[in-house]
């Protein structure tokens, strides 16, 4: 009887294997009692890795279609999201720390007249001119390191203006050649406590053409910052201007906002960011 590694099951679940390999693994699944447990183990790990943003850009892009298409699968993903802080909390002895959901201070948002863009790298956050943003990590990563953490990738903060959906200047992003993706945190100034959002990445020239369409994204909070996070694969950003569209999902009332992202790639070394 043939055998399978964890990577094989992950590839099967993400639908990234050739047909003959799919056939081999399906037969193994039916013949070997241990194979089902290995498959379930791999599926849970994929959900956890997705929740922790530990999938490669290609895996991350393949995940929603492969493993979020049913309500049962979405429930599993929410469980993984809930599991995420458990080890750290247990280590700190804070398992029963009360949940705090800060309220957004909408009144202060009126001070914003445009989009502010910041990149968070490591422990620091710097506000930069949009044209200075580099979207690449300093570490060149190959496609052969599929589960390398995206934690070191830069984060693009798309901050809200006073009026959601209002006109804004496009956000210019420069990605280094070889960058896998760009983590984006889109601020939500929804007057309701909506829990789930949908993010679409559209071709700005043709808003009917969706390059990415992911629903069921959770609202996240960091102190007063309420946002929805997504990692955009670099290949979806290259080319022309993209429109990042965020919408609330039922049963909450409507909320909609969008930003234009103009990305280009460069072979130049990343711009040095001074220590704070």
């Amino acid at each position, binding site marked *: 009887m043939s055998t399978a590694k964890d990577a094989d099951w992950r590839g099967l679940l993400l639908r990234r294997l050739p047909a003959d390999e799919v056939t081999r693994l399906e037969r193994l699944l039916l013949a070997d009692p241990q194979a089902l447990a290995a498959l379930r183990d791999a599926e849970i790990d994929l959900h956890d890795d997705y929740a922790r943003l530990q999938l490669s850009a290609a895996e991350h892009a393949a995940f929603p279609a492969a493993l979020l298409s049913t309500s049962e699968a979405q429930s599993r993903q929410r469980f993984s999201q809930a599991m995420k802080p458990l080890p750290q909390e247990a280590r700190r002895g804070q398992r029963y720390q009360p949940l705090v959901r800060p309220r957004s201070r909408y009144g202060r948002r009126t001070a914003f007249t445009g989009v502010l863009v910041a990149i968070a790298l490591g422990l620091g956050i710097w506000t930069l001119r949009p044209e200075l943003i580099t979207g690449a990590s300093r570490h060149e990563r190959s496609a052969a390191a*599929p589960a390398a953490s995206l934690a070191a990738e830069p984060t693009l903060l798309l901050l809200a203006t006073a009026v959601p959906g209002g006109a804004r200047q496009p956000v210019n992003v420069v990605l280094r050649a070889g960058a896998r993706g760009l983590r984006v945190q889109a601020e939500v100034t929804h007057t309701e406590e909506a829990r789930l959002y949908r993010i679409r990445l559209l071709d700005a020239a043709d808003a009917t053409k969706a390059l990415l369409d992911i629903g069921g994204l959770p609202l996240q909070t960091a102190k007063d910052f309420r946002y929805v996070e997504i990692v955009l694969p670099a290949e979806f950003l290259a080319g022309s201007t993209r429109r990042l569209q965020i919408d609330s999902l039922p049963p909450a009332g409507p909320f909609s906002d969008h930003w234009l992202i103009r990305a280009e790639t460069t072979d130049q070394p990343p711009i040095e960011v001074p220590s704070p």
Partner: protein
Amino acid sequence: MNSDAGYAALRDRLQALFSLHRPVEAAALADEALTRWHASAAEAADASLAADQLHRIARDLLAAVPAPAAPLPTADSSDDEDDALFDPATRKALRACFATLGTDAAKLILGYYEFGSDGGGNAVAARLRRRQQLAARLGMSTEALRDRALAIRAELEACVCARCAAGGDRA
């Protein structure tokens, strides 16, 4: 393969196979495959032969059942029932359920699902190494450890589902 447990295990495996292609209809397709297998009079006692027969039947069924039209999840794929499982209610329920686990089970699940981002590099390889070390420490095989972790996680998920369904104030 004649015992009820054997059939149930085979059905589980078939359902897992169909879930890879038609997640919504997987259970019904597994039942249909087993029905066809029994009716074919070619039911093999040997596990490997039986797997080949069932795989052929499964593939025929998949070819006959049209694939769903929209592969990407959209706003419509999230309903109220799912919403009830979402954070923070899910997290709150998880904490409550986690507190009901025994110490050994709690340690095992934390050790098994701890993630290795701090190790850098390949997180999958780091996780595998950590689980091997955990199994060695606990004096069990990695397969036995995996089965135990899956069982505890399933128990936790069921507990969280039950608490969320019963209402947030209980969690």
